[in-house]
């Protein structure tokens, strides 16, 4: 237990919080408030009996905040940011402040339940854990015996990024079953095609380097809402370093308001902009000739490509002016340490990988890659050598007669509705980076759903709903702390502990810490941690392997971080508990066995993990995949026009581009019913749809009008907010507002594209078109 006192004064929440625990209504009650006895106008000091634990917010946000939970008698009475963590700096984000109310939310599920009515009817029967495990074990065993292990699937995403909660516990059970595993592709998969195609690395440099930058470019990212500490690092380049801040985004984000330059690109046209910038850098002789001649391959091909278009043509495609391209190129070339912080927004398009590839050209041209605080930064750092998962996840997968693992079918998150279809279920061919649809030989009969809420967060969610509503025999097991949208469709509901109640470790994506998470608070009600639940199901299925006996995460953590690299770096369980987060020091020397390429090679001797060893401005791989080998200029509009299931008529019928970015008040569906959050994300009972005045006027819509968003996937209802922060033709709604909190039980994800990106099999959430009508 990590006892420490980061702040001297503490106040008493104990009385009220204890009372609130006692008064938590049972499952299924209204989710509007955690009742406190009264407002505390002058909170007083605590009596010194508190214990303090390090926890790490596990929401798949690149900040991975180190937080300190204050606990009395097993009840978390307060939570604050860890002041000694260089990213968190003592402040959680807006929603992190509400973790006490989150933990003790009235819609916590307190005990296992089985469905007794129809789906969505909300009729449940409380059962014991013994009954729950027996029921799950019997159902899954029956299905496995009758249809094979692959008839059992999983649905998971980033509700809890803890390695044990997300990977180890579920992985051991699902591998033993021989289940249909999930390709977890909503986020940033095109990145790992686009960026390595140029500079060979899937791993970003440590983004804390940007404290030394003199130009911070936030690109396709809204740090103010999705990674707030990086908004501060970015703005501090301007505020403290005397440097500049540039925002490139389709929406005028909060940071755009505070930027020296805001470039508002038409969605998915970033490659046009990049080509324009390359053109200016080359024609005005602003590129780093020494760097390019020493380290780049294909420069002549790029030069040729820049000559194919005028700056006007390129600017027009982006809906900006040529002057903006020129100004940006000059600012970029003039900076000594220009940093591009590239978000995931640009990737959820049909040209995601090509877009990322184009952006990766810029730091090559100005020779920024090997300068401290400069280059391209994204949310993935190399922590691989810190863990050895095989120590805690023995290979339990079904084998053939030669002892080889049998290749099994997979489903994927983005197209989960397609995988659930009884008639011709499909998913993607995992052998191919280019999207190829394959039929699943074994239809899914049961799904274990954990760390996500698919009815809120998966795209094209009506298709998922269809199978659930039409097939009463389909068996859905949901592990969740809360009564989510998905719980409404479950057959068996298992109360899972939150990260505040479960010990775990996870990764910090962008600075590269190994992050510890204590089981700070006592589990609410009869909840169990994910690990124990999965082990319980395994035992009920008769599995006897030793790994299913280990219910103590501490044992697993100690085991999995016992690697030569962690030893060398002094990363131990005890140190994690004491310090909360530990960062391995990644140097050329310490990384030479693991990734002896850029970004871990001598600054004066760069070696890229590409076929040529150079930064490839010409990519044979992209060419072989059917794309332009230099910079490819296809946009989402081109994709829709070219594909026969859509076509030009589709864009006429559904003319409004519809994006679903995140609000700062939720992270995916987390916090969706929190008493301090919910009133801020609903607009008089409806989720908000942000529209430009011009688009609204053309449809007779005003601020506050209730509208429906429609496309071929379905219909969702919103209340309109008129905004000026995007261009006409572009609309957006916050992603993942809970359907059941709205008046119509619908949400934006009903409309979202379940297409697959050009390369890397990523999602295309953002590449959605709709029409909006007054109701």
């Amino acid at each position: 237990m990590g006892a420490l006192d980061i702040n001297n004064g503490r106040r008493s929440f104990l009385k009220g919080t204890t009372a609130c625990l006692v008064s938590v209504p049972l499952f299924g009650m209204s989710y509007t408030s955690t009742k406190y006895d009264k407002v505390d106008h002058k909170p007083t000091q605590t009596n010194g009996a508190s214990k303090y634990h390090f926890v790490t917010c596990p929401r798949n946000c690149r900040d991975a905040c180190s937080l300190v939970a204050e606990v009395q008698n097993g009840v978390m009475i307060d939570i604050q940011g860890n002041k000694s963590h260089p990213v968190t700096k003592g402040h959680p984000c807006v929603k992190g402040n509400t973790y006490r109310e989150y933990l003790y939310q009235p819609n916590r599920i307190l005990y296992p339940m089985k469905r007794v009515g129809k789906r969505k009817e909300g009729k449940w029967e409380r059962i014991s854990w013994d009954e729950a495990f027996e029921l799950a074990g019997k159902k899954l065993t029956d299905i496995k015996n009758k249809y094979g292990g692959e008839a059992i699937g999983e649905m998971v995403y980033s509700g809890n990024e803890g390695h044990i909660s997300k990977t180890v516990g579920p992985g051991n059970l699902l591998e033993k079953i021989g289940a249909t595993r999930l390709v977890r592709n909503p986020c940033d998969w095109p990145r790992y095609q686009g960026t390595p195609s140029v500079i060979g690395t899937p791993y970003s440099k440590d983004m804390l380097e940007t404290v030394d930058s003199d130009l911070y470019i936030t690109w396709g990212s809204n740090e103010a809402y999705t990674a707030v500490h990086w908004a501060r690092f970015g703005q501090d380049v301007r505020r403290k370093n005397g440097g500049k801040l540039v925002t490139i985004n389709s929406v005028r984000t909060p940071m755009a308001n505070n930027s020296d330059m805001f470039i508002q690109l038409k969605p998915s046209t970033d490659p046009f902009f990049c080509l324009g910038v390359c053109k200016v850098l080359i024609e005005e002789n602003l590129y780093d000739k020494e760097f390019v001649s020493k380290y780049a391959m294909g420069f002549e091909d790029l030069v040729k490509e820049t000559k194919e278009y005028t700056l006007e043509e390129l600017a027009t495609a982006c809906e900006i002016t040529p002057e903006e391209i020129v100004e940006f190129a000059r600012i970029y070339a003039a900076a000594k340490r220009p940093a591009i912080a590239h978000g995931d927004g640009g990737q959820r398009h049909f040209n995601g990988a090509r877009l990322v590839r184009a952006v990766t050209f810029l730091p090559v041209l100005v020779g920024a890659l090997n300068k401290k605080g400069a280059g391209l930064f994204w949310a993935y750092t190399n922590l691989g050598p810190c863990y050895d998962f095989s120590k805690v996840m023995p290979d339990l997968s079904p084998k053939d007669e030669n002892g080889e693992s049998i290749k099994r079918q997979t489903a994927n998150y983005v197209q989960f509705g397609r995988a659930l279809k009884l008639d011709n279920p499909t998913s993607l061919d995992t052998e191919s980076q280019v999207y190829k649809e394959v039929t699943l030989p074994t239809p899914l009969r049961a799904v274990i759903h954990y760390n996500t809420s698919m009815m809120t967060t998966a795209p094209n969610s009506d298709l998922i709903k269809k199978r659930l509503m039409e097939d009463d025999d389909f068996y859905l097991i949901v592990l969740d702390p809360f009564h989510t949208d998905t719980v409404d469709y479950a057959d068996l509901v298992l109360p899972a502990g939150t990260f505040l109640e479960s010990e775990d470790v996870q990764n910090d994506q962008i600075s590269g810490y190994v992050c510890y998470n204590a089981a700070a608070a006592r589990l609410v009600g009869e909840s169990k941690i994910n690990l124990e639940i999965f082990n319980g199901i395994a035992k009920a299925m008769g599995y006897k392997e030793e790994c299913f006996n280990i219910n103590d995460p501490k044992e697993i953590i100690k085991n999995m971080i016992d690697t030569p690299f962690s030893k060398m770096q002094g990363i131990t369980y005890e140190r994690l508990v004491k310090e909360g987060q530990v960062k391995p020091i990644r140097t050329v020397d310490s990384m030479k066995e693991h990734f002896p390429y850029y970004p871990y090679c001598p600054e004066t001797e760069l070696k890229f993990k590409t076929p040529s060893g150079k930064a490839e401005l010409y990519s044979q791989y992209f060419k072989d995949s059917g794309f332009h080998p230099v910079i490819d200029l296809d946009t989402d509009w081109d994709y829709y026009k070219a594909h026969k299931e859509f076509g030009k008529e589709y864009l006429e019928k559904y003319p409004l581009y519809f994006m679903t970015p995140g609000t700062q008040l939720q992270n995916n569906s987390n916090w969706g019913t929190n008493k301090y959050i919910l009133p801020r994300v609903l607009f008089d009972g409806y989720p908000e749809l942000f529209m430009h005045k011009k688009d609204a006027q053309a449809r007779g819509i005003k601020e506050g009008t209730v509208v429906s968003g429609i496309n071929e996937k379905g219909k969702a209802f919103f209340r309109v907010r008129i905004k000026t922060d995007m261009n006409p033709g572009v609309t957006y709604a916050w992603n993942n507002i809970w359907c059941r909190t709205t008046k119509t039980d619908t949400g934006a994800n009903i409309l979202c594209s379940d297409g697959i990106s050009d390369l890397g099999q990523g999602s295309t959430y953002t590449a959605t078109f709709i029409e909006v009508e007054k109701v």
Partner: protein
Amino acid sequence: MKKLRKSFLFDQDFCIGCKACEVACQTYHKQEPEINWRKVDEYEVTENKKLKSVFLTHSCNHCENPICAEVCPAEAYTVREDGIVELDRDKCIGCGYCAQNCEYDAITIVGKESKAQKCNMCTERLDIGELPACVRACPMGVLSIIETNLADRAGMEKEVVGFEANSYVPSTRFYPKFVTGMKRKEFSIKI
């Protein structure tokens, strides 16, 4: 030693409108969800012919001539030596005159008890050397506490987009407009 007057100090140029200050005030006080002692507003302005949004976080401004204290028939308001305007809710009779007269919309009388309530700059925290809940929570470091005299000597402003200083003489101060190349001065306060 005489306690120096204190002010909230806000840097509008770098606020992102995230509402951490609003929410942290609520969680700290276990507030009713619809009541905000501190609020964040958004304003649209045109700068260099381009539209942009700026944000203002505001609460009680702890005025030098607080109108709330002047109109309160129950004498529930007092001004501390350090300038903080405090409300004694035991004395409050819920008449609402203070809320009606405060031009900054800083006082609310809705809520379970139908009595006035407002920001007290977390005096209970300041008195033990800690920053107010909203200041502590600001992830951008744009909200702080400063000695009013020091703020004035350092050229801090009394008005900003969305905020006009009226005759009650609000104590809140604002950083001057930021220009690229400038480096923001940070003030440390001995509470």
